[in-house]
């Protein structure tokens, strides 16, 4: 087993793709760095915290992007966002079998906040353009920093999200909510509360994550492969169905104040046990109980 959580963006790609198949576009040797960080005397990275390129997955042609949480928490700046948008648009020209996004991001990079916010909206449009052209976009979320802010929205624009229990997915991070609204709104140091609110198990039960896997690069690879034949559907009928599902989530769980209330309402026996189960036991326990 090789931990996805602890690996770097490049390490994850090496383990995910067919051996030796990855070809990076605009590699660090090209020195395409953020001009804005320098201006603020902040260290830059030669890849601006994201690795993009082409590779193979069980011989299927894929485009891949991997955010590096180790550099500014994977935050999106002008160059970082443009690399992601460019990669997605490349799919419109080269028609791969799919696009894999290995997300790990706190959202917009504050040092270049306006450029980052606009960049995320360009990524959003590019994701939808790729899907509308019939190419699936699959998200893998199991990194140390989770996936928040604009990238949390981007993830849910895609065909499917694969998560590990350790992965986190949301919009405003717990620290941001605590800092702005107070500790009584969200105690970001309460690890158990954070995991059961934004962690992989809850996201899987809600239906936000399509697949829950162990924290293992090989498991992520198998899950991505299982989803690559997904046919994107952005039709009015598909979005009307999604609308109905989100409406029903509001009706069923809108008054819940804790994930435990939701799990109980889903018919899970002894919901308080879910956080301690390993992935296999968890999946067996919640079978047929997802929203």
């Amino acid at each position: 087993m090789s931990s996805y959580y602890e690996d770097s963006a490049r390490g994850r790609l090496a383990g995910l793709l067919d051996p030796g198949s990855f070809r990076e576009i605009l590699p660090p040797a090209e020195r395409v760095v953020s001009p804005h960080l320098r201006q603020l005397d902040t260290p830059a990275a030669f890849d601006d915290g994201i690795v993009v390129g082409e590779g193979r997955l069980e011989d299927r042609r894929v485009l891949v992007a991997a955010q590096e949480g180790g550099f500014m928490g994977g935050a999106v700046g002008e160059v970082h966002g443009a690399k992601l948008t460019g990669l997605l648009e490349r799919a419109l020209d080269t028609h791969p079998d799919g696009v894999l996004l290995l997300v790990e991001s706190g959202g917009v990079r504050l040092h270049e906040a306006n450029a980052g916010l606009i960049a995320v909206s360009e990524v959003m449009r590019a994701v939808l353009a790729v899907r509308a052209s019939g190419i699936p976009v699959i998200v893998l979320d199991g990194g140390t920093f989770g996936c928040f802010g604009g990238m949390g929205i981007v993830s849910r624009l895609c065909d499917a999200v694969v998560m590990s229990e350790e992965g986190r997915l949301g919009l405003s991070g717990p620290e941001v909510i605590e800092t702005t609204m107070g500790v009584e709104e969200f105690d970001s140091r309460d690890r158990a509360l954070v995991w059961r609110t934004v962690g992989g198990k809850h996201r899987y039960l809600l239906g936000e994550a399509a697949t829950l896997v162990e924290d293992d690069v090989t498991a992520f690879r198998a899950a991505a492969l299982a989803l690559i034949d997904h046919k994107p559907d952005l039709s009015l009928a598909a979005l009307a169905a999604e609308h109905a599902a989100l409406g029903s989530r509001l009706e069923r769980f809108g008054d819940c104040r804790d994930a435990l209330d939701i799990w109980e309402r889903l018919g899970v026996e002894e919901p308080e046990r879910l956080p301690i189960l390993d992935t296999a036991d968890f999946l067996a326990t919640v079978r047929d109980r997802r929203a």
Partner: protein
Amino acid sequence: MDATTLLDRLFPDGHEIIADGVYFDGTGRGFGTEVAVIGTIDNTPIGIELAFRMAGTVLEVVRRHPGRPILLLVDTQGQRLSHRDELLGINGYMAHLAKCIDLARRNGHRVLGLVYGQAVSGGFLATSLLADRCYALPDAEIRVMNLPAMSRVTKIPLERLTELSASSPVFAPGVENYRRMGAITALWEGDLAACLAEALAVPTEGDPRRALGEERGGRQLARKVADRVRHDAA
């Protein structure tokens, strides 16, 4: 400018807009065109109910009024910051709203955004930033974060941020900064009905914001880098 005054100036031929709390929607008329209007007031935070409701209205317009232009008048201080919204998957509701707006565009509806109050972060991302074109009134405010908060988080002295923001549009709040970065097509002043008619008449294709940001000196690298990644040999 308050929403009532704004609607009267945008639609001198009349409008039927129904308000419900901080939310409103309906139809405006001008220059012989009917325009679907969806908006919010009072710098309201966008939580899951509001995102869901706006998405429903967009789907309704696509279903019942094929091709009718949509004008987003969303006044928001950003996404609602709450444990409960995160618990229920607010990012999924925001993404759903964005998908519905994108569906409208793909189905031939012109979608325009006009920032008349505030536009902030997630509330802006899931609405007007997904429009074909986004405009703003000169006294509107667009931001991710104000400079004092940004200084606390980045540990960069406020004086340094303030000094740099005089010349750089890249991080400080302001509609002019967003115009220079290419996200705001133009500022609307004077005859707002004429501005709207003109915006509805301009053909749109693709996402021109990177090129616009480069032309206006706000984002020097976004277009170049995206183009290289799109076209370079791997």
